[in-house]
């Protein structure tokens, strides 16, 4: 089990060439680690009987068993979902950042891709429909939600192609996307959210307004959280290429304070709008994200 869990480590995953394989490893490892089948739920396919409990729907009572045993049992079915999930992946330039320049470390985008791939695999396993949206300052890719094993390959191929792009314009893109998605579903946003939080939260609310469930995976690099720089540093914007000379020592406190503020602003804003907000850094194992998803899925 432990051996399998190591595959959930993002850095370890980065060493695996195929994203599909990586995604499967993540999910399978995650599942085996849970010791619990994830495939419970309501389904057209019978699974087992369970004694009736007050509150259970009467339509699920197995009358045949009642006839035989004079007891109320209800039938449990394997769920046949119609959940439509939208993985919304930020591919803006800032997502290409990684603080650790070693070859086995990963960028925020790569982390997001693995996360998206793992979620796709998991969701398709649950027979949910999964779609993929990538964006930077505008919508780049839109793969509508589909159900079926071949769709995994479609999405993963797209993820594998994704590269850090231009500047971010999250709120505009989200508004546009909210308008575009007609049927309600689950919107999973994977982004560093380095944009105006107020505007971003507004756009997230737009999803909620459209009755979507929203999970926000706020992906940040550990360096963005700890700001481990010192001395004179010339910061070069990965999106705009603009440079900013900074005395890192001097800014550190201010930066950390502001970053803390930003995260808490997103957190509070999301809570207020019943949006699940998960702040992760690229060193956090993926199972954490998957468990978040599943807990959301159960609702």
């Amino acid at each position, binding site marked *: 089990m432990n051996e399998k869990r190591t595959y959930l480590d993002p850095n370890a995953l980065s060493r695996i060439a195929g994203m599909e394989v990586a995604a499967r490893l993540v999910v399978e490892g995650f599942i085996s680690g849970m010791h619990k089948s994830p495939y419970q739920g309501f389904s057209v396919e019978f699974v087992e009987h369970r004694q009736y409990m007050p509150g259970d729907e009467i339509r699920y009572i197995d009358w045949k068993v009642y006839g035989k045993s004079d007891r109320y049992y209800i039938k449990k079915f394997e769920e046949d979902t119609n959940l439509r999930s939208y993985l919304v992946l930020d591919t803006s330039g800032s997502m290409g950042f990684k603080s650790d320049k070693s070859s086995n470390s990963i960028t925020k985008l790569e982390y997001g891709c693995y996360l998206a791939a793992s979620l796709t695999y998991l969701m398709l396993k649950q027979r949910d429909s999964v779609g993929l949206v990538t964006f930077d300052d505008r919508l780049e890719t839109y793969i509508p939600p589909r159900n079926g094993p071949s769709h995994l390959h479609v999405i993963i191929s797209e993820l594998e192609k994704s590269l850090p792009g231009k500047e971010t314009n999250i709120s505009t893109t989200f508004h546009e996307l909210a308008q575009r998605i007609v049927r309600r579903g689950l919107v999973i946003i994977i982004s560093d959210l380095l944009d105006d939080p107020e505007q971003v939260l507004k756009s997230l609310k737009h999803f909620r307004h459209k009755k979507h469930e929203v999970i926000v995976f706020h992906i940040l690099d550990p360096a963005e959280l700890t700001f481990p720089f010192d001395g004179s540093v010339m910061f070069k914007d990965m999106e705009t290429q603009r440079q900013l000379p900074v005395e890192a020592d001097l*800014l550190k406190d201010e930066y950390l304070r502001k970053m803390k503020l930003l995260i808490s602003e997103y957190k509070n804003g999301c809570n207020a709008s019943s949006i699940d907000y998960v702040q992760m850094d690229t060193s956090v194992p993926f199972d954490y994200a998957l468990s978040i998803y599943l807990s959301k899925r159960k609702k």
Partner: protein
Amino acid sequence: MNLLNPLLLIGIIAAGIPLLIHLWSRRQTKTVDFSSIKFLASLNLKKIRKFRLQQILILILRMLIIILIVLGLARPVFKSKWAMAAGERAKTSVVIILDNSYSMSYSGLQGTRFDIAKDASLRILDSLHTGDNASLILMSDIPDVVFKHITSDIQQVKDAIKNTRISHKGTSVQLSMLEAYSLLKESKNPQKRIYLLSDLGENGWQDWKEQTIPDDIEISIIRIGENADNRAIENIILSSEFAGTGVPIQITAKLKGTSEGQVIAELFVDGEKKGQASVIGNTVSFTYVFLKPGTHTGEVLLTPDRLPLDDSRYFAIDVLGQLKVLVTGDYKSYVNLALNPGGASDTGAFIMPVNASIEELSTASLDKYSAVMLVDVARLPDNVVRNLRDFYLGGGNIVIFVGKSADRDWYNNNLSFLPASLGSRATFTPKFTRISRWDDNHPIFSVFRDEGTANTLRTPEIYSAFAITPKPGANVISSFEKNIPAILENGSSKEKTGKVIMYNFSPDPQVSDVALRPMFLPLMQQTVLYLVSKDHNSYKNLLVGDIYSQNVYDKVDSAPTITDSEGNGILANLSESNQAGIRKIGFDSTQHSGIYKIEFKSVGIIQRDYFAVNLNTTGESDLKSAKDEDVTAKLGKQARFVSLNESFEKITSETKSSDVSSRLLIIALILMLLEVPLANRYKVKEPQDVA
């Protein structure tokens, strides 16, 4: 601003080091790709701007620290009024120029000028602080730099001042000032001051030449004494350079200046008082007869006034014994009479002529005669010529009168020591010629220097004479009209050869009437004295500072000892023998006026001689002080008169210079202390996580 260690200023280059480090560290700025600087840019950048400003401030501070340290070590000295407020009194080098010329021995109500000056000098030294240094120059015509290098041992300088004595010299301010500049040039101290303590006698400025005085030297002039009356003996004139035993000699003291009250002059000879006279006017004369041959010394002493040093004057004179002169020729009787007017019966005469026939000359021992006189002899036998030549080569003196008897060709062919070749004999028209020119400085004519006696030289009538061509080196000391040589002497090729004097006339009445003229007697006697004088050390009266020199022909066993006027025995220099076998005694320590005794052994016998050394009273005895404005005009704008009553502490401290080096170093230290917290204000803190 002056820098005492200007070379250290090179260190100012080090001030560029912080700048280089600053620029280098800017080049070392890491460039980091970052997700988005929008977020960073939204931070409060005021702090960064403040930090940058602070970095520049620290950079300036560090550069300033280095500059201040370098400047501090280079020891800048400012010269301005405000500089004193900025710095402490600069270390001071003082040169005391203490006038010890003899005019400073003038005694006033508060003591001698010299004692007052010494006291003031000691007070000046008392005003010096630790780190100051000083030197002492005793000012006379030749400055005595007591400390060749400026010294910080002030007590030593004080001791030297206490032991200083008055000199017997005159004054030259300029030479002493030059020495003082030279001493102060060596000094590293920023403040340099000369204290000139002098009576500022006018004579001290006679030789002043305009010169540039270094700007960094302040001069404080302390006048000791004002104009005053003073009488001095300027000179002693002896009527003859040599005296003969029994021959009266006139000793005349020439005075200068004035003094109050009656002045009595006293004559001392060989330490005994021999005469006294009241001084009326500017001369006082004594007549004295020396009875013994040899060198005699004497002193003329006036009633002492406030400056007693120049109230006495010394002399030394050689007194000769009887001089024997061999005279031969047709008209020798005239010469005999001129040399010894008392006639043959006067056996004690100073000059005693001895007659001999021409034949006797061949066998005569000529060495015992001071001179041989040939009075118009026609020619001489060969053996006489030989005897005369030997006499001449051995240092003997010959006087030759050529008249109408002289055989011109024989003289030209046989008497090689003649100073001239004889030509044809000329008879003057209308009847005679006269002596019209003579060398007034020649000792023979020393008695004909006043107008009355000079005229007697022109009186003789010369009826005939030879046309004469002087030989090379011969000296025509007198001429007739139309420039015909009248009296000649030979130039001596070797120092030991004798002297030959030729008269182009004779006492023959057919040749001239010279024998009848009053000038003939002194002319003959002066001729003999002159010839004798060359064998004597003629220069026996010197001034302070002169070099005594004497030729010695005899064998000298060892270097002579000279006992000065104060009783100090000093070895004189004795040169090696030259080709003529002459050695020269030299002595330059004639520092004090008085009688000096010289002693040396020659062939085991002690030889003793004397000479007199006197003050050079020209100017120094005048006691006329230079005016303040003249002095300051010469010494320049740095010179200022200072009263004896002023506080020397104040004067020495009244410096326009200040050494700000210690202040600069203190400021540098303060800035260093400021720099430390400023530089550490934004020290790197341990990283912390937002989580």
